[in-house]
């Protein structure tokens, strides 16, 4: 039970002032700009967007700054901001076969049609600290002149365009062959057809179990990366293994189309960065022979580790559907889906820091009564480590008395 208390306003105000000083750090160093965070800490921004369930890089960067780099706190801030906007509606389904790729790899097919594109990756780096980064390399470059990182442009508008560019038709995005297509041709991979169901929306519905896959995938898309990573790892260590292979991992920009009510036809509102991962896993024996099964995830932003973890967990959560023996937490829907949201989890865990004085008083008086009853029956305490207080003031009471004003503020709180 939690009972509200009053008081401490001045101290709280001072603490917030202290926080803003601490966040600013040494005033002799330049202050971080939101734009710098957005461009240079883009993986933090991506993680915050995915877990807050809001694609808004500028606001996510602001949240990272405000939270002084605490990403769980930043997710909380952005999720709260998300709650203040009205809903315009649902987008058309993203056509991820047309994603403009910045990265695409497959661990199953080395000769992937279209090739493997590494893109900017930490893979194959030596994980040695690069002390060159301690030096600012482009200090002298004026803000307007630096080369903009591909794919994340927010610019002053000057773009060098070749003069001879005659109006050509924009190259029609080609239909890329996916690794799944190859397996589907051979009929050794479970199909993935549009069954035409209206997807559930966890933003609007209360959580209930069993949860169908559309809501599971939405829940995984906003779940905490660390939680999903550990769950995925647990399956690899034997708590419900799914034998995953990374069939395809893609990061890139996709055009988001939305049909405004007043227009009645879909229009492209912009391009957003997405990460998509598909795993192929061991078999299900259907009527027409064994087939590979699949795990899938599609996330906002550039979140490769999370995408792979989520795809593995998606596959684990299909245990019931595929008639698998459940051997680990990652296969338990309620365990996974009810505990992965960092806003909910940190909210409920952190609330323990709030005053529970009245609560605790109740427990104190209960334990004292219990002990008094035992004493009166003259029983020897089972635990010798707890000394019997013989009429003396108890240590806990002494601690309370030191803080008399706080006790005052508690009166009547019950």
């Amino acid at each position, binding site marked *: 039970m939690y009972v509200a208390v009053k008081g401490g306003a001045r101290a709280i105000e001072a603490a917030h002032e202290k926080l803003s000083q601490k966040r600013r750090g040494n005033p002799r160093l330049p202050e971080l700009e939101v734009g710098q965070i957005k461009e240079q800490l883009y993986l933090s921004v991506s993680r915050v967007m995915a877990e807050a369930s809001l694609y808004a890089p500028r606001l996510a960067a602001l949240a990272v700054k405000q939270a002084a780099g605490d990403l769980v706190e930043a997710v909380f801030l952005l999720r709260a901001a998300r709650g203040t906007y009205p809903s315009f509606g649902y987008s058309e389904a993203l056509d*991820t076969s047309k994603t403009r790729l910045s990265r695409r790899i497959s661990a199953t097919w080395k000769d992937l049609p279209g090739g493997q594109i590494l893109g900017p990756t930490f893979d194959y780096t030596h994980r040695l600290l690069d002390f060159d980064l301690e030096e600012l390399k482009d200090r002298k470059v004026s803000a307007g002149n630096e080369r903009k990182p591909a794919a994340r442009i927010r610019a002053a508008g000057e773009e060098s365009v070749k003069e001879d560019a005659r109006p050509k038709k924009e190259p029609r995005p080609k239909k890329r062959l996916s690794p799944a297509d190859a397996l589907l041709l051979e009929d050794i991979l479970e199909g993935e057809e549009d069954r035409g169901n209206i997807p559930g929306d966890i933003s609007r519905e209360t959580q209930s179990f069993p949860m169908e896959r559309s809501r599971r995938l939405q829940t995984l898309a906003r779940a905490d990366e660390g939680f999903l990573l550990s769950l995925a790892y647990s399956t690899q260590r034997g708590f419900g293994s799914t034998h995953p292979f990374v069939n395809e991992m893609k990061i890139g920009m996709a055009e988001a189309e939305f049909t405004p009510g007043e227009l009645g036809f879909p229009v492209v509102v*912009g391009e957003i960065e997405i990460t998509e991962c598909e795993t192929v896993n061991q078999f299900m024996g259907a009527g027409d022979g064994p087939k590979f099964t699949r795990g899938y995830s599609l996330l906002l932003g550039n979140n490769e580790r999370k995408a792979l973890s989520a795809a593995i967990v998606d596959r684990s959560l299909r245990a019931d559907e595929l008639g698998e023996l459940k051997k680990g937490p990652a296969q338990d829907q309620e365990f996974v889906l009810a505990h992965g949201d960092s806003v909910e989890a940190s909210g409920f865990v952190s609330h323990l820091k709030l005053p529970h004085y009245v609560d605790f008083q109740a427990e104190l008086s209960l334990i004292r009564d219990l002990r008094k009853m035992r004493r009166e029956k003259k029983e020897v305490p089972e635990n010798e480590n707890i000394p019997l207080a013989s009429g003396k003031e108890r240590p806990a009471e002494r601690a309370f008395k030191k803080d008399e004003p706080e006790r005052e503020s508690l009166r009547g709180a019950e």
Partner: protein
Amino acid sequence: MTAADKRALEGGQAERRRRMRLFGLSEPAILEDFLSGLGEIPTPVYLKDPSEGLVTLRGRMGGTGSLFNIGEVLVSRTVVEIEGRRGYGYTLAEVPGHSEAAALLDALAEHPLYRETIRRFTMELEDKLREKRKREAEETGETKVEFFTLKRGEDD
């Protein structure tokens, strides 16, 4: 709904989709520079002031299967009317003013005095977008690998 509006919806739907996409995918500063280059334009009436809202993005399971919701994207919306011509702006809410510039351009594209200028401008935008994407694809292409497996000395 005005007569011009109705015509636009029925006849110019493909054209409107094309230009709205280009306005959404282009740098807001380019749109704003172009607008200020037009000088004095007829006073727009704001039917919907620039405001932000959420569009829930949808994907398909496995890329081709049933729909599911991924999360929301913050979108900005403006609707204007310039001398009876409506203009709609729907863009990402990253840069303030983006949807407003898009809506003004969309309305002007329906206006006989400006139609041709805007048409030429959208062609320029299309070129710019193509160039930018080509450049980015080339940069990404530099990281394309061809993996090959080493012969391990076993007999075939």
